[in-house]
């Protein structure tokens, strides 16, 4: 009897400790982001206040209005940066996925000599730190006259994304049973038709998530973009964020607002792909 109740008490205590642990972990994860969102909506006076104001007294969207009303009002050209980011990210994603599909299919469906060597080689090109790669690219781009252009950055981002899209798409094609395509070929499809009508639709969701992953990589990239772009004509949002720190005083509220603008597309897209992403990474890698 006594043993029973003490065991029950112990179990309940453990349950409470577990809940607190989980709550603290989630708080640590979410708080920084929430704080940014909150700060972007408060007047600057409240951000600077001493002693700190914890609960916002008034909510204002001034930071967002100022940001989108152009350079004249002390904002930065966010609309242009946004447009550059979008053009560069979408174009390079489309190209990288097309190349990645070809490569991923080759790894998933064919046996050839030096397969794992080629795979490791592709991955190694991805390990080159952006800043190290930016040195020769900077020099070459100046010579070729494509510095500070959309084209230059798109080219660099395609190369950045190809290894990873190959890895992901390889994994998704492996999940599609080989027999299906073979059955289609026996029924008279060519290999090309079997690919487009059987394998591609089945691997489709996975390929879509590889695309979103590639998009996010471009959307978030900073090291290369900061050196290969100079002006409003090609600067992307991450580089634009530094515009705020260029002056002597930092416009915290403005930076928070821009941060929110940057995070919203990323947030939505990641939410859509989360399930497939994990599946692709693990299946591609564990079952070799």
């Amino acid at each position: 009897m006594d043993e029973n109740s003490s065991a029950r008490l112990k179990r309940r205590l453990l349950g409470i400790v577990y809940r607190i642990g989980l709550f603290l972990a989630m708080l640590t994860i979410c708080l920084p982001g929430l704080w940014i969102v909150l700060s972007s909506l408060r007047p600057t006076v409240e951000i600077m206040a001493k002693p700190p104001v914890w609960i916002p007294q008034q909510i204002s969207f001034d930071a967002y209005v100022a940001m989108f009303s152009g350079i004249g009002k002390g904002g930065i050209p966010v609309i242009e940066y946004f447009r550059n980011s979008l053009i560069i990210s979408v174009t390079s994603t489309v190209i990288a996925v097309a190349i990645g599909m070809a490569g991923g299919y080759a790894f998933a469906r064919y046996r050839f000599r030096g397969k794992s060597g080629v795979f490791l080689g592709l991955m190694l090109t991805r390990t080159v730190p952006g800043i190290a790669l930016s040195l020769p690219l900077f020099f070459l781009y100046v010579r070729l006259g494509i510095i500070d252009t959309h084209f230059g950055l798109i080219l660099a981002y395609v190369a950045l994304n190809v290894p990873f899209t190959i890895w992901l798409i390889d994994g998704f094609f492996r999940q599609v049973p080989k027999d299906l395509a073979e059955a289609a070929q026996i029924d008279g499809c060519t290999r090309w038709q079997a690919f487009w009508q059987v394998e591609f639709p089945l691997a489709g969701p996975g390929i879509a998530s590889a695309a979103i992953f590639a998009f996010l990589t471009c959307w978030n990239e900073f090291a290369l973009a900061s050196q290969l772009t100079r002006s409003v004509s090609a600067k992307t949002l991450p580089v634009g964020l530094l515009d705020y720190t260029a002056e002597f005083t930092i416009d915290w509220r403005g930076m928070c607002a821009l941060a929110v603008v940057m995070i919203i597309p990323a947030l939505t897209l990641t939410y859509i792909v989360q399930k497939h992403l994990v599946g692709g990474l693990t299946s591609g890698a564990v079952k070799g």
Partner: protein
Amino acid sequence: MKGFKPSAPFLLLLPAIVVLAAVVVVPLLLSLYSSFTPFRLTKPETFFVFVGFRNYLSILANADFWWAFGRTVLLLTIALNLEMLLGLGLAMLVEKATRGQRILRTLMMFPMMFSPILVGFQFKFMFNDNIGLVNNALQSLGITRDAIPWLIEGHLAFIAISVAEIWSSTAIFAILILAGLLAMPKEPIEAARVDGCTPWQTFRYVTWPFVMPFAYIAMTIRSLDVARAYDIVKIMTDGGPAGRTELLWTLVARTAYSDGRMGMANAMAYFSILLSIAFTVYFFNKLAAARTQIGAEW
């Protein structure tokens, strides 16, 4: 050329190889060459002067470089180990949850959506000595009266950067390890329990070997872009105060673009590339080993 018929996988891989050769391999060869010249951006003619290993020798004799190198390795060691441990802990916490696991999983992925530059900005804001959340909280709770100079004092700045780095990358480990935990069959655990294993023994000899390959996948992915710490440091401290948080990558950027000493910077960049490759190859081998071990059991 008669009778030469390239194989299908070669043709399929050709575009990838062409792009990577053009944008990564050829430029890297160029930078390898220029690391043997005293090339400066302001003096283009120096590109054709060959000085052998002079750049490398002067780097090896440069104390600042070694400090940055050591600091980079230290940061990576601390960050990767803590990320692994915290990720494992987080994954096990979430796996235990009986209700709302979907929401918890989504929340857990939250930091992954932040680009490194945003992570850096966010923690620069939070660790600000005057208006930052951390100091405000500490002062309101009465833990400290004076503002702690987080980003102004060298060691504290290093800690702040490590915190930012760990916050942003723990999610990758947590998610992949959680995927491993969820994919794991339940029978071995029950069998271990019936046979009288303690929880620790069950974890050590049943769960961990199974989850290990997933942890190594996370490690491999992570080691592919360890250099993103550059973004975080660039915006948080820019290598300051007085070079106390200078990493290999910020040092390369400073030498190349602020000082214009491209030859020297390229030589340094080669050290950083070799460091990245060493990390990746190491974890890739571990992954392959773990994979064959698991493969034998499956």
